[in-house]
């Protein structure tokens, strides 16, 4: 099973939710409990251990917020 890790350049996220909509393992959501530096509710990964490094979120992110790593194992 391929494992991955997604990291968000949080302060450039505009909270559009496109990453959330395409994540096949449903581990992303918008953090509605706070706003980031530019006034949006940023996306984050709430179950990082489930990431499969598919890059879908990064591919559809319009603001190039997301970096994806593949964990070798």
């Amino acid at each position, binding site marked *: 099973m391929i494992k991955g890790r997604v990291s968000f350049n949080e302060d*450039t996220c505009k909270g559009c*939710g496109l990453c959330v909509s395409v994540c096949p393992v449903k581990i992303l959501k918008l953090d509605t409990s706070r706003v980031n530096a530019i006034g949006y509710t940023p996306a984050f990964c709430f179950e990082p251990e489930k990431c499969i490094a598919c*890059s*879908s979120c990064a*591919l*559809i992110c*319009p603001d190039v917020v997301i970096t*994806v*790593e593949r964990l*070798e194992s």
Partner: protein
Amino acid sequence: MSVIFKKTKGLTDTPFTYCPGCTHGIIHRLVAEVLEELNIIDRSVLIASVGCSVMSYEFFNCDAVQAAHGRAPAVATGVKRVRPDSIVFTYQGDGDLASIGTGEIVQAAHRGENITVIFVNNAIYGMTGGQMAPTTLPGQVTTTSPYGRDTHLQGEPIRISEMIATIPGAAFVERVTVVDPLTIRKAKTAIKKAFEVQLRNGGFSMVEVLSSCNIGWGLSPVDSLKFIKDKMVPYYPLGNFKDKGVQS
């Protein structure tokens, strides 16, 4: 552990000024990634147009010339003719390319101008507040077609890729979209091919990208992608309309 996706060097550090969820950002990134992968950032010249992408010269990490509304293909012609070693591409919306700039785009294709055109079609004038474009769908409500586009009065939407493909000078014409990871990957492949045509002096190349305008359409970002899939793609079919095969 290895990084499999990070921001391309083809983009500057300036954050995009586009609305949340606007797919301009995806298209910018794809073009910039292609510039990096083809190792041409250093000799590329972006011709920025007028519309939402008017400030694209802030985002692409290469030299740029800002053009008047619709004139980007003429400006690109000027740059490319005097600097044929430069990679010259325009980035134009549908108001710019399909309305005020139809003369310039048709004639640049007609001359077989060795430039690449990224044509972003979102069926509306976004920057000026959501007015009707020549590409606006039948019945679509905009601020200047408040009762829906009436095709008897305002015509049927214009299909630019199909038209350009009929011009002998056009070497590569493809319509793509960016609504999910699969279509995004395909869009990038087409954009890369288009630049490869230019690298091989193959003539005019254009990629039309069906894009969203969630603010102008009055939809959420996610619903906007559904609108492209369900409403735009049936009228503007995806696919290649012209490929002289010069990119490989």
